[in-house]
């Protein structure tokens, strides 16, 4: 299902898409990191997570993981992991395929790379094209990468459970461009928290299986964008629009229009609801604030009336002050020469 297409069909196309500059840069960077059989990647990994293992040499195994279909590739990956672990050397799995059950159906996931250590440890590697400048990076992007990696860790754990000697590292390697260059640098990210959260979310998902069951026959998870689809599956509770959706979902403008038409206060942000108690509509809140509706004994109503009175009093006193000062009490836009919207 292409939500972008659907959104356009619904009349609310969202301003999404990826710039080809960013796309090319991302691909070029990943290729650079994995060049020469992943020599640079393994160097970074060994430097940060090598432990007591011997340094990876030229004999790093890079098994061929190609197979037909996601199921076949997942099986091939599991086999390669077993063989590499048994071999007791370093192995780099480039774009392996992992399977994870989400709300009763298998989802296929494709990490950028998984490295098998000689001691049987498996480390997830995420390659991102946002920069690490002076050893720090955009925290929301790192957070998203950590949540994504945690899903891979969980999926790997299922394979590790049936593989002798295998253990999945809870610390993953995040590889990014260094400062303003295209040279790779890396940082270790501890994903124990994200893993615990994701595991809980997956167990909670069985509860919403009935919603998943209500999806059209043949709904599958597209392996090309595993994390987004997984997020979508996680969020497959009845649609509740919040402004955060705008950055994440192609259908958000459509949902926003619906939410606004219903007068839902959430359209102004989730935090708005926090103080409004049982009042859920704009009209309802304003009527309560104006004293037209609502039980004055309800603390929400009482606070709203008080807020409205204080606000009115303050605006009035400011107007009086300004009138005294001989100024026109001009509020926004009243006297702007242009008086028109931006960007016509």
């Amino acid at each position: 299902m292409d939500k972008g297409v659907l959104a356009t069909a619904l009349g609310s196309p969202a301003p999404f898409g990826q710039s080809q500059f960013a796309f090319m840069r991302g691909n070029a960077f990943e290729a650079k990191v994995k060049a020469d059989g992943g020599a640079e990647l393994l160097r970074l990994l060994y430097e940060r997570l090598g432990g007591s293992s011997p340094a990876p040499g030229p004999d790093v195994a890079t098994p061929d993981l190609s197979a037909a279909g996601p199921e076949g590739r997942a099986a091939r990956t599991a086999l390669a992991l077993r063989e590499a672990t048994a071999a007791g050397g370093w192995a780099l799995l480039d774009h392996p395929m992992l399977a994870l059950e989400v709300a009763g159906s298998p989802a296929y996931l494709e990490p950028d790379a998984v490295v098998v250590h000689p001691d049987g440890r498996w480390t997830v590697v995420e390659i991102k094209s946002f920069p690490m400048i002076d050893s720090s990076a955009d925290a929301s992007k790192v957070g998203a990468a950590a949540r994504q990696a945690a899903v891979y860790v969980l999926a790997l754990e299922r394979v590790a459970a049936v593989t002798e000697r295998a253990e999945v590292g809870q610390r993953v390697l995040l590889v990014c461009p260094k400062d303003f260059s295209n040279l790779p640098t890396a940082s270790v990210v501890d994903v124990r928290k994200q893993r615990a959260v994701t595991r809980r979310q997956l167990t909670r998902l069985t509860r919403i299986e009935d919603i998943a069951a209500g999806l059209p026959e043949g709904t599958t998870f597209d392996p090309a964008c595993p994390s987004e689809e997984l997020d979508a599956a996680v969020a497959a509770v009845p649609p509740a629009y919040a402004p955060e959706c705008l950055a994440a979902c192609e259908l958000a403008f459509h949902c926003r229009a619906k939410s606004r038409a219903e007068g839902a206060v959430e359209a102004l942000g989730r935090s708005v609801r926090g103080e409004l108690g049982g009042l859920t509509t704009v009209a309802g809140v304003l009527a309560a604030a104006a004293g037209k509706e609502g039980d004055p004994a309800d603390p929400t109503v009482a606070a709203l009336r008080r807020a409205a009175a204080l606000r009115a009093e303050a605006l009035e006193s400011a107007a009086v002050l300004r009138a005294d000062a001989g100024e026109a009490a001009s509020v926004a836009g009243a006297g702007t020469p242009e008086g028109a919207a931006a960007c016509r």
Partner: protein
Amino acid sequence: MSTVFDPGAEAARATGAILDDTLHGSSRGIVVDSPPGAGKSTLVVRAALELAAAGHPLMVIAQTNAQVDDLVVRLAEKDPELPVGRLHSSDSDPYDKVLDGLANVTKSAKAADLAGLDVVISTAAKWAHVKNVEPWGHAIVDEAYQMRSDALLAVAGLFERALFVGDPGQLDPFSIVGADQWAGLSYDPSASAVSTLLAHNPELPQHRLPVSWRLPASAAPLVSDAFYPYTPFRSGTDHGDRKLSFGVASDGSGPDRVLDEAAESGWGLLELPARHTPRTDPEAVRAVALVVRRLLDRGGVATSERADEPVPVTADRVAVGTAHRDQAAAVRAALAELGVTGVAVDTANRLQGREFDVTVVLHPLSGRPDATAFHLETGRLCVLASRHRHACVVVCREGVADLLDEHPSTEPVQLGVTVKFPDGWEANHAVLAHLAEHRVRWKP
């Protein structure tokens, strides 16, 4: 092969090692993690007394004036002869008047007036203004996890070596302005003093008090699993060592049933029908007050290792915990209406470090339409769920688990910041899942 866990011996062994390092060790710092009710204050008092007795004058740094005054009183109880200095601010009412009745305590706003005393105690904020004095050989930093790194920076020049004691599970220190630009730096000024200390001195000995003497056997595993997954602890008492019972039988109402459940199992969840409410949800507030009223009316008595005879659970042995100050105010008003006095009602921040027989908690997420980072903060829930010796009753609207599901954890991650604690979202779920087994549904 299994060994029997002897809490007393375990705790004594830990304390012995800590005191040995403090008195005879060569490292400049010692860190002690103390879970709720593990005897942190006892340790601090004992370490101070032993250092003083060994001829090492010391300074003690606590975080609030109440903590400082409490320590001064405890020291005087243990050793009424010990010369103690209470360094205080020059504001009005700078210290608790109780100190005026202690003959061994000298009080002054100037450090110079207290020179030569065995122990000098003050807050970190006051110590930060002390300049141009000869550094102390020893210091004890109390509640070190609630102290900010920049506060330690301001006082660390005053001592040669220090014992840092605190509870890593309570509320983290915070800043009213953004400090993200320093995240990941070992000396991030907004991080806790202990994070900075250990980042720069990873070789320092780290100890852990392994036994909670406060939390009953019914509570320690849950609190340990949910909030201290990487540093577990045990209860000092076993199932059956403590007992809460009532002189008056249940009248079958929700509050009475939840009290019975809590007396029986240590936990009770009084679940009100799902509804989005304002913070000061009148029904929930009243339910909290009713539970307290019934607890007192039914003549609760607590049996424990502390006394041979059952001890009545009086108002001063009961606390109500909330997330917000206005909620605390509303509960106080509701209690006053029911004629209850003497029960501590406060926010998590203010209940930190305190202990009661029974606590009644208004769940931070009850009735909320959203789950913000504030409400999900692990430390807040940890404080509320770990103040009791016998039982904890949580009052909550139905639907919090669904609310959590709608607000999946999407915390940003700063590179280089050590993960110390479980995720608030996950911890909330863990606690809820446990409470669900002790649920009493009630429609007021």
